[in-house]
């Protein structure tokens, strides 16, 4: 398998572990973003961390978005005062529609399969106009358009 194949495998594996840990039934686009933030040594990782978006900061932004969205209908997750469930190490985790869309966008951002790099995949996640990722980034005060522009810049330099 080539480098990008291994990279996609590792962000999917990481995304699956994140999905399992937060009780999700499927890997969604925001789990891919966490996976991209967890893989060091890529231009995509550098773009995120230079904006203060390491894995932990993204997790916090996602939690804020979750609580914010619940609050819009008068719900707080803190009101459910039951010990958290033991995660299921064997529950099958699928690939959600938002992750599929992000991957498709990432693949088509690259001129050819041979040129596909981590930053294309980050672009695929960041270019979603609606959904959990743009909402979480906006709530965290991150300029998504600027992040997209900087990701595109790194692609023009041929960096991995």
């Amino acid at each position, binding site marked *: 398998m080539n480098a990008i194949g291994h990279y996609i495998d590792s962000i999917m594996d990481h995304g699956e572990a994140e999905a399992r840990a*937060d*009780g*999700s*039934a499927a890997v969604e686009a925001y789990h891919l973003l966490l996976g991209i933030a967890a893989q060091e040594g890529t231009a995509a990782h550098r773009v995120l961390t230079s904006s203060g978006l390491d894995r932990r900061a993204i997790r916090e932004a996602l939690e804020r*978005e*979750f609580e914010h*969205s*619940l*609050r*819009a*209908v*008068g*719900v707080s*997750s803190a009101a*459910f005062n*039951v*010990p*958290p*469930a*033991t*995660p*299921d*190490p*064997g*529950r099958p985790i699928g690939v959600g529609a938002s992750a599929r869309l992000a991957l498709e966008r990432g693949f088509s951002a690259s001129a050819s399969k041979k040129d596909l790099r981590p930053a294309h995949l980050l672009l695929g996640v960041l270019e979603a106009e*609606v*959904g*959990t990722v743009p*909402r979480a980034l906006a709530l965290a005060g991150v300029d998504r358009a600027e992040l997209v522009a900087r990701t595109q810049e790194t692609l023009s330099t041929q960096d991995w």
Partner: protein
Amino acid sequence: MPADDIPVPQEPADALAAVVALRRLADQMEDAAVEQAMRAGWSWPQVAEALGITRQAVHKKHAKRLIAAGVTLRRRQ
């Protein structure tokens, strides 16, 4: 919370995001509440009836996880 204090989502994006967040919260709550009930000695038929789903469905979804978590499960009511 009094009805007057419950915020009403104004934008479609907020209303749709609330649906996504509520689904996720409901999934998390189901896992936690089933585990709490089974640790408290409830039976599968009781949990299934309380959730309004079949015993087979609740067992299929939660049994392996609870066994792995070391919960002692009641076989019969």
